[in-house]
């Protein structure tokens, strides 16, 4: 399921950048997170080796996915966990709704799960009249504001303290104009503590699911996943099937990479390992496909399924930092989103792989060595092959390819181009030329290099 956006990334980005000081602030904030990541990475001489191990473990996982899932399910069930399977987001939502109805649950808390965002769980439940409280502080803030998270790890990164203060004043009755993060966090702590204590159902995500034990790991800094899971009578953990890793010892590799890549911390405050429900509790896992098995079959793109949702790629992406997560019109934005989302809905997301200069920085920061920038290039070819390029663009490209395939035509076109730029500047120096909006055109030299060569060198 993907959102039907009525804007392209380029349009949204232009609007975002119109507020230049705010763009600079957003860019600097995220760049700072990238710098923290660099510091953490450089503190481990074995960092690049860790990335290789992580990449290999994940690839092994992709290549043995069937067996690993079967083992995982068997082990989880033996430990008293109920395992459900959902083909798509709709089925995922219905499974959760059925558990809610069967148990007559009314008070639900949810910790951060990008999968539930992808499935639009909150919207679905709200339509059914079920109240669901997001407990990650950033997510609670955007939930109050009726926005979606703009970053998969830092959901409210697009908001300033004043924005949060206004929102909390409106919804929690905090002092108007008090922007102190400590004060605001304390208010949220009190408000959400009541929700945890009263909760009947806790929904969490899954960072890693371990096949050999049937257990799973949830990582947070706030402790909100656990406050819900250990208080509520029912715990539902939602996961894309690619979250599987073979053995518990592999967590040593991933837990060393995850927080360092995401925020520059050596590890999150809580790395919670769940394997059995507590006495009297129901524990459920929902394993979701939603296009992942299709992506698994795409040779060029299957490596995108290695993703551990750290968002290091977001923080290094110059385009994301200057356009904000909402300009990607999907649950998972950033570079990783741009190679996952076209698989979900190519038509709706055909603009995303083009929102990049292919600089390659993302692939370098990815802890599991996904070749993101190469996949962006390959998605461009796929999208064009499917006939989704704009008609005008296709014609222009065809024209260019003909010119460049025929030397004599190329030389003539070049000469004409230079003549126009020199003698008829108004043809290029106008509002219809996007280059000219904020840049001067290059000057036209009197001769091409080839002309110079023939006149000076070729004797």
């Amino acid at each position: 399921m993907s959102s039907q956006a009525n804007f392209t990334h380029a349009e949204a980005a232009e609007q975002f950048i119109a507020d230049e000081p705010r763009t600079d602030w957003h860019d600097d904030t995220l760049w700072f997170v990238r710098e923290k990541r660099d510091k953490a990475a450089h503190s481990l001489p074995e960092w690049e080796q860790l990335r290789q191990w992580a990449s290999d473990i994940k690839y092994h996982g992709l290549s043995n996915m069937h067996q690993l899932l079967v083992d995982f399910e068997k082990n989880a069930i033996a430990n008293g966990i109920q395992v459900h399977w959902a083909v798509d987001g709709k089925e995922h939502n219905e499974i959760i709704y059925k558990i809610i109805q069967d148990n007559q649950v009314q008070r639900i808390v949810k910790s951060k799960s990008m999968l539930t965002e992808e499935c639009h769980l909150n919207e679905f439940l709200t339509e059914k009249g079920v109240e669901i409280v997001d407990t990650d502080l950033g997510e609670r803030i955007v939930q109050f504001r009726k926005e979606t998270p703009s970053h998969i790890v830092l959901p409210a990164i697009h908001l300033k303290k004043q924005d949060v203060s206004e929102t909390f004043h409106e919804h929690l009755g905090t002092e108007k104009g008090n922007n102190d993060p400590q004060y605001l966090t304390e208010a949220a702590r009190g408000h959400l503590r009541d929700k945890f204590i009263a909760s009947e159902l806790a929904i969490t995500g899954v960072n890693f699911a371990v096949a050999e034990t049937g257990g799973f790991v949830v990582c947070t800094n706030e402790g909100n996943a656990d406050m819900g899971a250990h208080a509520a009578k029912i715990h539902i953990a939602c996961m894309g099937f690619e979250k599987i890793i073979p053995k518990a010892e592999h967590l040593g590799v991933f837990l060393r990479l995850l927080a360092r890549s995401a925020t520059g911390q050596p590890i999150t405050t809580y790395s919670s390992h769940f394997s059995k429900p507590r006495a009297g509790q129901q524990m459920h896992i929902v394993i979701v496909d939603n296009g992942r098995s299709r992506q698994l079959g795409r040779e060029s793109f299957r490596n995108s399924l290695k993703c551990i949702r750290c968002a290091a790629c977001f923080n290094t992406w110059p385009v994301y930092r200057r356009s904000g997560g909402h300009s990607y019109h999907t649950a998972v934005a950033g570079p990783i989103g741009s190679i996952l989302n076209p698989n979900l809905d190519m038509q709706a997301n055909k603009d995303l792989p083009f929102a990049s200069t292919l600089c390659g920085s993302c692939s370098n920061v990815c802890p599991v060595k996904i070749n993101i920038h190469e996949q962006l290039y390959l998605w461009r070819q796929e999208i064009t092959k499917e006939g989704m390029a704009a008609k005008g663009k296709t014609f222009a490209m065809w024209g260019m390819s003909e010119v460049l395939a025929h030397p004599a035509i190329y030389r003539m076109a070049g000469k004409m181009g230079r003549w126009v730029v020199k003698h008829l500047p108004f043809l290029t120096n106008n509002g219809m030329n996007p280059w000219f909006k904020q840049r001067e055109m290059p000057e036209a030299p009197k001769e091409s290099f080839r002309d110079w060569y023939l006149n000076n060198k070729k004797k």
Partner: protein
Amino acid sequence: MSARETILAGIMANQPLSQDLPVIDVSAVIQFDSNLNQFKTVLESIGGIAIEIIDWTALQDMMQSDFAQGKRVVNAIAEIGSIDPNLASLEAAELASVQRAFVKGGIAVAENGSIWLDETAMVNRLLPFIAEHLVIVIEAKNIVATMHHAYQHVASFDTGFGMFLAGPSKTADIEQSLVIGAHGARSLMVCIIQ
């Protein structure tokens, strides 16, 4: 076909040729001159407090002092006092007012200041999260260098729940300002017994 069958069939059809698992060479990772010192340094940098103690009496004194001040304290360490036999079954509402909890930690990890706590140590899964302040006791000899070493010593899924705990709870969700004390404990004191 059920969803399970559909999904598994799709995966079977699409998964690539099997590639072997890598060999994790634990001898190739970072080592510290002193795991104890590294642990303390990192713990302090993430908002925790480390104190070295000779024996359990320091903790007994701490607990007595809390009682004297009328604080609600929960103890989960047999060595320092009795453990409430109902602790395991206490629910959230009954634990909400706990101001301090004492829990015994297992393996500790120097590279990230974390401590392994399993369900038998916590007694009640909610306790280390809902208590306003947390005191964890570890033995210096149980501090290992990295997570790889930790997983060699910890059967992380044997008791129904366990976690690596690194410092007090925190968030930076409001304009990247670090605030200690989000939903979990507001402070963490780690007492290290030699």
